[in-house]
């Protein structure tokens, strides 16, 4: 009988193992098929540094916009229970599920030269601002989702107590809600940043592909595939390492917040 149990356990693990192997293999391949020399030469390709700088700049700006506008929105969503707030929450999550190519076309029709919000003489397409717009569009929903969930876990009694002692809504928001929800907010911001860093389709379609102006890291990888595969691979490895570090950070933050909740 115990042999039977062991066999069944092995069966379950084998099935799971197949999927894990499939998920990990491409990333392993990315790293083991390069050599240190190739990696170094890849990183010295002229595409690399302008793209890295631009990615850092644009994702910092888009993250600041996302956090500045997303935090109040998430607090409001966490504290209202009307049909409208449900609708707003659903709408704000829509960009998570729509394909990037759809986002690109939609942004063109909204902000492009012939778009809804176009003006006579200026066009956003081709500008760095367009990159930021694309990044905010695809990444803000991740932050809103995480922040709303973090605010929902803030003990409502604390808020009530603060209000009875005369604290005004802004003071409650800044002194109670944000500190208590901080781990969730940070994790959400990290996820949103990762998504903005990886943004590709909408940027290519809406913003363009010009070195130093709109060519972010993912676009540089795509462009480098045409020119020098080693540069594409080197950039890809850099992005994997950054993403992995970010994932570890998010998981550590969430674990700490969970254990803190457990103690409370």
């Amino acid at each position, binding site marked *: 009988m115990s042999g039977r149990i062991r066999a069944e356990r092995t*069966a379950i693990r084998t099935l799971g193992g197949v999927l894990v192997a499939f998920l990990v293999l491409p990333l392993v391949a990315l790293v083991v098929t390069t050599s240190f020399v190739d990696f170094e030469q890849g990183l010295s390709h002229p595409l690399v540094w302008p793209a890295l700088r631009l990615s850092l700049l644009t994702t910092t700006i888009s993250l600041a916009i996302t956090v500045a506008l997303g935090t109040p929105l998430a607090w409001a969503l966490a504290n209202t229970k009307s049909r409208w707030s449900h609708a707003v929450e659903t709408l704000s999550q829509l960009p998570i599920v729509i394909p990037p190519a759809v986002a690109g076309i939609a942004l063109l029709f909204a902000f492009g*030269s012939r778009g809804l919000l176009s003006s006579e003489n200026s066009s956003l397409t081709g500008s760095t601002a367009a990159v930021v717009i694309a990044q905010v569009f695809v990444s803000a929903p991740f932050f809103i989702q995480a922040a709303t969930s973090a605010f929902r876990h803030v003990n409502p009694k604390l808020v009530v107590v603060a209000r009875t002692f005369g604290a005004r809504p802004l003071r409650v928001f800044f002194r109670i809600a944000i500190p208590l929800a901080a781990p969730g907010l940070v994790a959400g911001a990290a996820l949103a940043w990762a998504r903005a860093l990886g943004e590709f389709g909408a940027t290519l379609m809406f913003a363009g592909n*010009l070195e130093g102006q709109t060519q972010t890291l993912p676009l540089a990888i795509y462009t480098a595939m*045409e020119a020098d595969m080693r540069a594409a691979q080197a950039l890809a490895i850099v992005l994997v390492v950054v993403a992995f570090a970010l994932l570890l950070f998010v998981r550590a933050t969430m674990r700490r917040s969970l254990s803190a909740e457990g103690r409370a």
Partner: protein
Amino acid sequence: MRRDTRPPWLPKSWNGVGAAGACLVLLAVLVGACGRDGQPDRLVVFAATSLRDAFTTMSGPFEGAHPGVKVQFNFAGTQQLRTQLEHGATPDVFASADARHMDALVAARLLFDPVIFAENEPVVVVSTEAAGLVQSFEDLPKADRVVLGTADVPIGRYTNQMLAKADATLGPGFRARVEAKVISRELNVRQVLAKVSLGEAQAGIVYRTDARSAGARVTTVAIPPELNVTASYPIAVAVGAPNPDLARAWIDFVLSDAGQRLLRAAGFTTPDTAGPP
């Protein structure tokens, strides 16, 4: 007595090990089914983006002449297709928008017997809003937003060659004045066309065939012959092609009178009809 919680549709002999085995077998079958070996009636053609309209039109009469055969296309930038070939993709036929990539693939023994089947020339396309602004090649710097191909794709390389020539004849600085207006360098020629026909860019450089396919959404400005370059399109059979006979038949059809006529209808010049150099 232990209550049986299994769903009634499950066979009595069902157990975990069997299920796991079945899943693995199913997986193997599904993955195997995605392979494309042993399909005698399928012709896979990798072709440069600029061939999209011409080749798609040609597939109709070809399939008519070869009953039961299905032609499948993979249209992309020539360099992208080259990368796919170098990483093990085995189409039957490869049609390139420039001789350089073709030569490299022949040298790498991935293709053989290339033959030039068509020629194309770059033109300037102008968005409807800017039609009055850019009326000749010399007007190109007057456009506020210009889109070109990246230097690594054929159209981008031809563009750079033309701009270099223009610097010599239209005065030094012409190239720099154009490049100051560039808002994006696209990775294939259809993206250049899309940006112009959507009005996101005022002008771009594409092939004559692309300009023709856009119809009235763009206006076309010819480039003076002394500045222009000719794009040659070679076609070849892939080494290890699953269907070498069909591949030959496709190339013969492309080179036949009917095929060449369809290419000319799409805006290509064909080697026989091309004027004296």
